[in-house]
């Protein structure tokens, strides 16, 4: 995380990839406990990753990462459950259990991994959606994607960032409805 915050995109990607199975298990557990369909877990996971990304400046580098991460996941799980109109009990012990537990059988997790989530992507402005799809689904670097789309790298960076922010806002609005 420290390297990522210092601007190392490769380290950042590695970190997020490494955190994902842990966060997915946290989301699965919380969904199971609150009677939310397992399919929602991937949505909750992606929302959590978005929040980790957009709020990473709130992590105090002198503090351990796990409690910070757990607090973000907890906040997002509460939102996910609220969308289902349920009152929720998210126990901090969930995170400790998941941390302590070995990998589990992983079948459900592998199944989830193949799923599409972030369906709200369709609600973004075309410009923002195009930008996010270029750097994510097609896996291009910012510079390549900017060339493909015929825009400057800086403009694309702004579109990607605004798009990610709008996604988080869309999730929040979905919760408030």
């Amino acid at each position, binding site marked *: 995380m420290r390297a*990522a915050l210092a601007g190392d995109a490769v380290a950042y990607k590695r970190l997020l990839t490494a955190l*994902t199975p842990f966060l997915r298990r946290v989301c699965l557990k919380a969904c199971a406990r609150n009677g939310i369909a397992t399919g929602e877990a991937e949505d909750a996971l*992606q929302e959590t990753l978005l929040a980790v990304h957009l709020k990473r*400046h*709130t992590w105090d580098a002198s503090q351990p990462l796990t409690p910070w991460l757990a607090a*973000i996941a907890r906040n997002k799980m509460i939102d996910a459950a609220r969308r289902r109109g349920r009152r929720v009990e998210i126990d901090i012990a969930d995170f400790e259990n998941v941390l302590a537990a070995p990998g589990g059988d992983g079948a459900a997790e592998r199944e989830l991994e193949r*799923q599409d*989530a972030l369906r709200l992507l369709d609600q973004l402005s075309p410009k923002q959606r195009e930008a996010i799809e270029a750097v*994510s689904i097609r896996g291009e670097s910012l510079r390549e994607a900017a060339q493909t789309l015929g825009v400057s790298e800086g403009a694309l960076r702004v579109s990607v960032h605004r798009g990610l922010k709008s996604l988080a806002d869309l999730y929040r609005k979905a919760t408030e409805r």
Partner: protein
Amino acid sequence: MKTEDLIAALAADNETRAAPMSRAFALDLGAGFIVSVAFFFAALGVRDTFFASLGDPRFLFKFVFSLSMAASGFVLAWRLARPAADARRALKAVAIAPALIVAACVAEMAVTPSSLWAERMIGHNAVHCLTLIPLMALAPLIGLFAALRHGAPGDGRHAGAAAALASAGLSATLYAMNCADDSPFFLAVWYVIAAAIVVIAGWLAGGRWLRW
């Protein structure tokens, strides 16, 4: 969108960096407070006896009290602005201002004949106090809310109430320079009610606007 695609997008966005929390707090709260200070000097100004009163312990205590509210509220809001923050010590510090006012009231009772107590408590300008303190708390509160939205408070209502306490303290500091009533009795009733109004508003607003 698959999760691994999202991660790719997030990594591509790593260069876009948010301002550090300390800068957000300094700029947002600073801007809000400047608005209130400008309003204070334009509309109210210090009272005529301001400089003559600087030696009066009652007058000076008003600032000790209001600044302790402001400082403890600010530290608590700062702590609560991050997820999983440990705010226990900051929460204890919030008790300083109420403890001071209780102690000051006891001292006032000791030195003032009881026939004067009611008069000093009611004071001259209770309505002013109840309207101007919340009014001048508004701009710093908006500033602190902006800073908290930049952060990620685990509980919006708690963070909102802490921000409101800080704003009420700042506002009361300004108001105290104009207010003609110096008795701790007056503070214990009217300043405290005014601050409570702001804190309740901050609590409610925080639940609504400090979600992320």
